[in-house]
């Protein structure tokens, strides 16, 4: 333990990983919460430190777990993209875990609190692990951790439908996980290595083999299931709708994002160089899927009566944006995808936290129950408004930055029509956000409900996230810089996909 900084990469994972069993050991609600929060804060501190270091031109030395060489053991190789995602994950957790205290007390039976926090931490650990690791199989292991805990967390929703939702997610998730595992297995079979770095060098040599291609297909579909790309999104709406507020917020902000990151990594670092010839047709196919996802998600969001569900569908649309950025295959588009990943996480996380506030006070997130709530819970509603604006992509909010870059990407790719579609789609966001705003501010409640403003312990974390959407919409340098560098890293490491 000579230098904690030196071990930061692994501590990012180990600290929450250790915290989870510790929580189970102590079986105390408050203590669980404190431990979870501390763990997430530690991770946030760690990832920011690493991000700063890399952003400042430094490098994080490859971390050899068990002291073994990369080709023998497992290594953590933190680059800018890793650090970026880690910062996002731990940042979201650091806020959501704080928020969890009040919300969990409201939604989860006391006796299960410690399990809940343990699962939350495990999920967090899994996602962090997927993001940081430099080993293909290790990705799968952490995917399993995050998925399993995710299923359980979703099932904790009060609505009985939460169980079914979780079950469906389990089926789909397992399918995805299996596909990914198959893909990794195939790759290992052909190359004899699991180290991503080595894989990326080795795979191009075997790009022509059916095994590697099948591996690519499996990994692509597997990650697409996990990130809920249209048409593999079906598990998502119910999960986000019926999960406990904290879980909705946490998963919506992190789970799909990490999957996207994995897809990104696989696409650019493994497949990119290998499949140059297939790039064009492949990309147009993905653009097609992404666009359908964007429009379908937005359109369905418009039709929803439950705001959580609405947000869930909007997530599908936003995922479409990210994938779109990926498939544009240029620096701006990719930057857009990565920064949208970040911004959307903040925004959607914040919005789901707002939903948590409503759940706490109203026990419902149905639009008709929210009628006229703007007056009773002005601060909560203000948070929703800001988040909604960010979702729409209004300037000075984070959402704008990402849409900007996506649009620039479309321009750079010479696709004017795409620019138009992107902008049109963000109008759909206006429609569904304003449906809620209209009801909340200008609707007349069916019956006068006597509710108060959400408690500070909920509002504060909500505002941290919501505020950050504004902060990162104006002071974009650190994150945008990281996103851009990540994009460049991806583009240079795999060649142009």
């Amino acid at each position, binding site marked *: 333990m000579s230098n904690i900084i030196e071990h930061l990469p692994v501590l990012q994972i180990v600290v929450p990983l250790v915290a989870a069993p510790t929580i189970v050991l102590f079986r105390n609600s408050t203590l669980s919460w404190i431990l979870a929060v501390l763990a997430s804060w530690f991770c946030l501190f760690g990832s920011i430190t690493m991000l700063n270091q890399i952003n400042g031109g430094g490098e994080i030395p490859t971390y050899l777990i068990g002291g073994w060489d990369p080709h023998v053991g497992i290594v953590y190789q933190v680059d800018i993209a890793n650090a970026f995602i880690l910062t996002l994950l731990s940042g979201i957790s650091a806020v959501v875990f704080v928020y969890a205290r009040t919300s969990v007390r409201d939604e989860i039976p006391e006796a299960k609190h410690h399990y809940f926090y343990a699962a939350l931490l495990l999920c967090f650990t899994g996602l962090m692990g997927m993001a940081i690791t430099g080993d293909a199989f290790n990705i799968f292991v952490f995917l399993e951790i995050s998925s399993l805990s995710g299923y359980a967390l979703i099932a904790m929703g009060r609505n009985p439908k939460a169980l079914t939702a979780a079950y469906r997610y389990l089926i789909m998730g397992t399918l995805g996980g299996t596909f990914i595992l198959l893909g990794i297995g195939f790759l290992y079979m052909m190359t004899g290595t699991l180290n991503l770095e080595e894989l990326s060098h080795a795979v191009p040599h075997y790009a022509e083999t059916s095994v590697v291609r099948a591996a690519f297909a499996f990994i692509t579909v597997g990650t697409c299931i996990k990130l809920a790309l249209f048409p593999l999104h079906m598990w998502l709406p119910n999960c986000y709708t019926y999960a406990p507020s904290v879980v909705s917020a946490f998963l919506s902000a992190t789970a799909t994002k990490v999957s996207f990151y994995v897809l990104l990594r696989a696409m650019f670092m493994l497949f990119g160089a290998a499949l140059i010839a297939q790039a064009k047709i492949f990309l147009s196919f993905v653009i097609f899927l992404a666009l359908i996802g964007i429009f379908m998600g937005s359109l369905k969001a418009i039709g929803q009566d439950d705001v959580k569900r609405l947000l869930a569908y909007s997530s599908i649309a936003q995922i479409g944006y990210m994938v779109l950025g990926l498939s544009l295959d240029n620096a701006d588009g990719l930057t857009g995808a990565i920064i949208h990943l970040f911004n959307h996480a903040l925004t959607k996380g914040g919005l789901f936290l707002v939903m948590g506030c409503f759940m706490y006070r109203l026990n419902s997130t149905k639009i008709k129950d929210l009628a006229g709530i703007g*007056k009773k819970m*002005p601060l909560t509603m203000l948070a929703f408004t800001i988040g909604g*604006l960010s979702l*729409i*992509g*209004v*300037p*000075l909010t984070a959402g*704008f*930055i990402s849409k*900007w870059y996506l*649009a*620039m990407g479309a*321009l*750079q790719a010479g696709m004017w029509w795409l*620019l*138009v579609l992107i*902008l*049109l789609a*963000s*109008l759909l966001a*206006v429609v569904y956000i*304003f449906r809620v705003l*209209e009801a909340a*501010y*200008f*609707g*007349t409640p069916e019956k006068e409900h006597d509710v108060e403003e959400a408690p500070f312990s909920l509002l504060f974390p909500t505002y941290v996230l919501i505020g950050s959407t504004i902060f990162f*919409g*104006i*002071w*974009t*340098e650190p994150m*945008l810089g990281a996103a*851009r560098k990540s994009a460049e890293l991806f583009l240079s490491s795999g060649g142009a996909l």
Partner: protein
Amino acid sequence: MMILLPILIPLCTALLIQVLGRIASDNVRDGAHTLMAIVNFYFVLQIVPLVLNGERPEFFIAEMLPGAPIYFQVEPLGMLFALVASGLWIPTSVYAFGYMRGHHEKNQTRFFTCFALAIGFAIGVAFSGNLITLFAFYEALTFSTFPLVTHHQDADAKRSGRIYIGILVSTSVCLLLSGVLSVWYLTGTMDFTLGGIIAGKVDDPFIVSVLLALFAFGTAKAALVPFHKWLPNAMVAPTPVSALLHAVAVVKAGVFTILKVSIYIFGFELLSSVNDWLMAIAAITILFSSCVALTLDNLKARLAYSTISQLAYIVLGAAMANPIAAMGAALHIVMHAVGKITLFFCAGAIFVGAHKKYVSQMDGLGHKMPWTMAAFTLASFSIIGLPPFGGVWSKWYLCLGALEAGQVIYLVTYMLSSLLSIGYLMPIVARAYFRKPSEHDEEHVHEAPWMCVLPLCITAVGSVLLFFFASPIRELLLPIFEGGVQ
């Protein structure tokens, strides 16, 4: 920092109002509102000497996008717009005080909050130092005014609110943002630069035309013809909103944007090669909306169409791509603002005092509401462009600009529009003064509360004063148009 104050003060005012709305009496809240308006105007005035001295005070907030920061810079045009918006905020705040009380409106705290926000964003538009900042505040302005449009919360208000937000946002996102993006993509900069930034970078007239179309139609706040519908719809809002926002701040933000884009993004030289169709559209807008105004009975709707037509004056001025016309356009922002705000004030005062909103009901109001109708008359003259009212000067430069551009037809358009505006404004005056009021009115009509009447008298007098004291405004603007005017 100093130039940030006029933007921040209204935003803080919004906050203050929210707080006061909860803890203090309504009078305290509204008093604070007025006070802050005055303070704000004071700070705006502080900047004027700097700008007159040729300085361009600037303030850098953050590098939002690399090379496209959130950045404020005060140049004469923006200074002018800020002066108008913040200056007219004071009478409007007093007026709103009286109006909202007189009308027993609900949700007044929200109203004043959004109001202050809108002013802040409008000044933000004015002080924007580059296109992206301008776009940001333009959008913010849209959203901050939405609650004001739907203020009454009834079905009508909601419907109008949807149209309002629908048109404004869809145009700004689909067209204006595309335009901004394209400019950025094509030129790599978005800073406002005298002489334009596109010139020299893009030479295909088709692309320039498309860009121009994106900006002209994207700025739906300027209410060019296919996208003008939101403005009449916005009239469901309480009158102070119609007055300050939908006659001054919001719509002027639109034309201000077009003006700025034409001067600083396209540059006159480039613009003059592709401006034909835009001028035609603007001219059509002028005539069309004037004609529509002639047929409307609802006073506020009529004024709204009049506003559309007057806005198109400015767009036409901007489109004519010469310094003189642009000067006229800039002047018209001021002149029309003062005139139109008075008209709306009057419409509101009539609503408060007489509960009338249709022209056909306004017989004989002049005797019961002498001050209001006198102000209405004066402001009408100003809108028509008669001397000795401020409207003359802007029209003078606009027409001169039309000649400069070699477009006599648009000179005729301006002239014709003046006549049409007589057609839709003067009958109201005539009715009010020279028709017998109905017997019912004898008892129920009374002058609006003094808080409503005082501001409208002030602005009416202001429209006269602007005729005599227009020179400073010209002095202020002259640096932009150096060499073009005289």
